């Protein structure tokens, strides 16, 4: 067995998986509470990635950074998460809220419209070309040379570690928030039974806003992590990532948060192993094959509850 190839794809799969998981969490949170597939969610990720790129530029560009790398990363993350969160809240406020009582197809089509709008707006403002985080150039490339080696000479660079560990930290924070805080509990209650939550005095509108903010902030962070590892940002990057994250959410059991993480990992691994062992031409097909297989064997997703629970 070629361990070098295997471990390379494993590392790539986990890194991709971390990014998909973060995006899938927002998909799942919004679906849980509104039963809406927010197809604009991938584009929030794109905006987060561009905000990160903007911060790099502000601090002198990849080759001539004027600040410490950790400070830079922190500023990038905070700004991308805030921008993502605020964008998510605006999308909810202006595109979805009025349609809450409408037939489900209406917000779905609106979500596609918002997605096109964001992609085209980004292209208009930022241009259609690829930009690069160029993290290889940061501080003379020291970021990628540090890290650690796996057996058979596979190197794991610091950016990959930052992306995966960062994603894990955010997931832990999210878990804590949802399980322990008052708003987090209200989110769970509202996503299980919106009317009963309202009957408890929970302001459902505010809970929905909080859900969009948090889910979208995670997507913004995912944009930064992705740029840090894979460099490229461009206006249409949200399409593929959003689609994969959506598949990840469904594979894990949409509406289920641990499911989104597991689904993200499965999709990330499926993608990189099919690229490494079969061909990059087929990776989309393989990812969809995973989706179909899971849907056939476990229609409610890997960790999804069967839909009979609700009384």
């Amino acid at each position: 067995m070629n361990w070098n190839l295997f471990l390379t794809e494993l590392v790539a799969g986990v890194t991709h998986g971390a990014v998909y998981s973060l995006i899938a969490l927002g998909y799942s949170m919004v679906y849980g509470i509104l039963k809406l597939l927010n197809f604009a969610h991938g584009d929030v990720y794109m905006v987060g990635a561009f905000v990160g790129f903007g911060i790099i530029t502000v601090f002198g560009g990849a080759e001539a950074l004027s600040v410490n790398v950790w400070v830079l990363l922190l500023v990038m993350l905070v700004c991308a998460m805030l921008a993502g969160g605020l964008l998510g809240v605006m999308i909810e406020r202006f595109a979805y809220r009025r349609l809450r009582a409408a037939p489900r197809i209406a917000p779905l089509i609106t979500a596609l419209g918002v997605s096109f709008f964001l992609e085209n707006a980004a292209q208009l403002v930022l241009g259609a070309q690829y930009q690069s985080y160029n993290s290889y150039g940061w501080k003379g490339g020291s970021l990628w040379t540090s890290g650690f080696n796996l057996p058979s000479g596979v190197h794991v660079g610091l950016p990959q570690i930052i992306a995966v560990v960062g994603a894990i930290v955010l997931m832990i924070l999210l878990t804590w928030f949802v399980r322990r805080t008052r708003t987090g509990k209200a989110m769970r209650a509202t996503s299980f039974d919106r009317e009963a939550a309202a009957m408890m005095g929970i302001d459902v509108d505010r809970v929905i806003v909080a859900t969009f903010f948090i889910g979208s902030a995670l997507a913004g962070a995912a944009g930064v992590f992705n740029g840090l590892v894979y460099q490229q940002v461009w206006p249409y990057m949200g399409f593929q990532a959003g689609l994969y994250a959506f598949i990840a959410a469904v594979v894990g059991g949409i509406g289920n948060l641990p499911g989104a993480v597991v689904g993200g990992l499965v999709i990330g691994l499926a993608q990189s192993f099919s690229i490494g062992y079969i061909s990059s031409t087929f990776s989309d097909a393989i990812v969809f094959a995973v989706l179909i297989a899971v849907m056939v064997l476990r229609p409610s997703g890997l960790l999804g509850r069967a839909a009979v629970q609700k009384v």
Partner: protein
Amino acid sequence: MSGTGDQVSTDGEHGSPNGEPLLVLEGIDTFYGPIHILQGLNLEVRAGELVCLLGGNASGKSTTLKTILGIVEPRNGTVRLEGEDVTRRPTSYRIRKGIAIVPENRRLFAPMTVLENLEMGAYLHGGGSKEDFERVYSLFPVLYERRSQLAGTLSGGEQQMVAMGRALMAKPKLLLMDEPSMGLAPILVERSFEIIKQVHEAGVAMLVVEQNANVSLSIADRGYVLSTGRLVLEGKADELRENEDLRKAYLGR
């Protein structure tokens, strides 16, 4: 209903003048889309009273409670709490003023623990003080034992206790109950109504919606009877129990 009809309303910004009923519904018309559900409903509950609202299936009982809470907005009419017009106020505002509900079918948050369900009941009161929990646990000791269990895994009787405990967490002045006996074994119905009596005797006013006329009239002070969205009967509970029309209505179905 003693005709309080056309008193000059000053849109009472401040609390209730003495003697104001806790809850007044005046000329309520509630629609679902084009369908006229509640038709000119007048109803009141005074402080400390236990009032029951009877009626067959789909007569509009739950809709009445949802109108009181502001889950649905009436097209015409006024909802007054302690004299204040709250018709256009959000649900949270009304709940903060002291209403709580045990909804139809209980509507527990099944994937959350018993403790978390109780916290949701006191959502507008910071999730409940130690006292609030103690009060509820002393009424339903079994909930203390089950506090870390998911509500969806409890038995029907226990779920009913969680639903009542959840509503009582907020220390309501007015407790709305939507068919508390539904789906319970007869012995549990009896237990439920004992608790209702006990809570009422502690000074909580109640509006109890029921199809089970006998049991609810036996503990109520007054009652209303709803039929396809209109009140057809109202009066003292013991008078209603003797009423031929009510008997016929319930036997005729």
